[in-house]
């Protein structure tokens, strides 16, 4: 009881909680779920991009893409490490992913069909991710906040690279390339808007997350911020966002906002529920990698034990 009160007071004061500090069970569980889901998203997110490494159209783009997936793997590492401070091992978290108990970002359940998808993932998907993640850099749980600061810096870099690759195609490319970019934007736009989660009035966990300083800004606020920022970028790029209802509304807020159309929440729930275009392929690929690699992990473990025995004997 005293502990709970002290914890609440620290949260209210904007203090950071460290791994060794006392925390309520639900706070721990909520964080664990969120951080591990975020970690899973990084590694599942390597798959749609990995699909195009072999086909990257220039050596420079191939190098950029390899560096990016490498960074994503690194993000996964930090995040698993942050989650481990809360008392669950990486293997336990992976088991939850593989059994379907733990989620990852639903955006990766859409396929990458053309090279332009890679640029659009950088621009829109990473862009939406950054919108979501910047507030987490001020999250009340310090290890998570520290991981996010580093991650956000790299994500911004990825976003610029993605946008830049689209800009090159739109400004100097062939008509076929421009059509490819527009097509990719058409396919990714709506799923990206869904990345901010359900509308605030249907997001029951948000209030508690806000209270605990895990969540700092509401889903709808972040979504609007993303739309406002992206419309301009789309104009510079010369692509049309696939929403006929998109229009400037000077009346909303202090400086006005872009109104946008209705999101197909039935699709959102269907994909989250496992029935998206490539849910099975993504999870199947991760499970297969894990199972195919079991003998490697066992060998590494056996070798380490042998080395230890030798050292102890010496």
């Amino acid at each position, binding site marked *: 009881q005293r502990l709970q009160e002290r914890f609440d007071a620290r949260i209210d004061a904007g203090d950071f909680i460290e791994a060794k500090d006392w925390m309520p069970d639900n706070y721990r569980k909520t964080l664990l779920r969120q951080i591990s889901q975020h970690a899973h998203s990084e590694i599942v997110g*390597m*798959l749609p991009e*990995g699909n195009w490494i*072999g086909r990257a159209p220039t050596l420079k783009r191939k190098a950029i893409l*390899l560096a990016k997936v490498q960074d994503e793997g690194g993000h996964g590492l930090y995040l698993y490490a942050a989650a481990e401070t809360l008392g669950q091992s990486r293997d336990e978290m992976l088991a939850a992913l593989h059994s379907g108990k733990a989620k990852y970002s639903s955006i990766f359940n859409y396929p990458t069909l053309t090279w332009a998808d890679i640029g659009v993932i950088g621009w829109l998907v990473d862009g939406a991710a950054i919108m979501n993640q910047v507030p987490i850099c001020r999250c009340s749980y310090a290890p998570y906040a520290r991981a996010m600061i580093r991650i956000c810096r790299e994500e911004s870099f990825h976003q610029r690279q993605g946008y830049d690759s689209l800009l090159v195609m739109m400004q100097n490319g062939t008509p076929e*390339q421009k059509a490819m970019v527009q097509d990719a934007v058409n396919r990714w736009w709506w799923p990206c808007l869904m990345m901010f989660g359900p509308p605030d009035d249907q997001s029951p966990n948000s209030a508690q997350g806000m209270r605990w300083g895990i969540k700092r800004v509401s889903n709808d606020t972040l979504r609007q911020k993303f739309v406002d920022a992206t419309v301009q970028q789309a104009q510079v790029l010369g692509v049309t966002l696939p929403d006929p209802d998109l229009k400037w509304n000077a009346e909303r807020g202090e400086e006005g906002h872009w109104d946008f159309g209705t999101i197909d929440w039935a699709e959102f729930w269907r994909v989250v529920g496992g029935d998206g275009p490539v849910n099975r392929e993504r999870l199947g690929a991760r499970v297969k990698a894990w199972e195919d690699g079991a003998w490697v992990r066992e060998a590494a473990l056996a070798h380490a034990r042998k080395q230890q025995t030798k050292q102890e004997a010496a």
Partner: protein
Amino acid sequence: MTASIRPEHRADVEYLLRLGDTTLILGQRLGEWCGHAPILEEDIALANVALDLIGQTRAVLTRAGEMEDQGFDEDQLAYLREERDYRNLTMVELPRGDFAFTVLRNLFVSTWLKLHWERLQDSADAELPGIAGKALKEARYHQQHAADWVLRLADGTDESRARIDTALAELARYVPEMFTADAVDAAAEAGKLGPSRAALREAWEAEIASVFGECGLTLPAAGAFVSTGTQGVHTEHLGRILAEMQYLQRAYPGGVW
């Protein structure tokens, strides 16, 4: 960029293509592991090795294009040649195999590349010493990473040992090509462009033996067969790699990326 290009078959250019195509195709193969490695650390490590290899490829192919004098840039050379004009070691075009095959191949090739980079620091060429100096640091790390895994797998479980043994039996067949010199090597040596492959055999065998010695592996004696990828006669695997690798450049002629 549209139709295929065909570099002149000059000895100095061929010499560089052998290096640049070897790093290119191995990089391509390692990229296939992305998202499919046994542990996350290896997803990262293999992507990192691939990234280094692609970086080396860019430097070497750019230099090859300058020498060749038809104005080909790194991407034209990487993407627009026909299969018979690629000059990589045959070994690197073999399918990615399992993790044992991957790390043992990495050990073999990164050691071979490392020995090249060491000697290329003294090349008479204006650019190669600089390229080699940077690549050498990377190759040392690649070699160490691969050697660590070969040790772990050879001295791990029965299964991992059996897999390393199988990988060794498969790869050994493609080792002689690494050291069978021809006119291109002779010209490179004479012109102080770089070492002949033949000159690297002893050092390579010593370095491999030092790793193998720690875990009871032995390099099989060389057979009569010498693979010929470095002379442009490949296995059936390269054509499939190229169909994938070149696809966008071929399908979008004149594209800007």
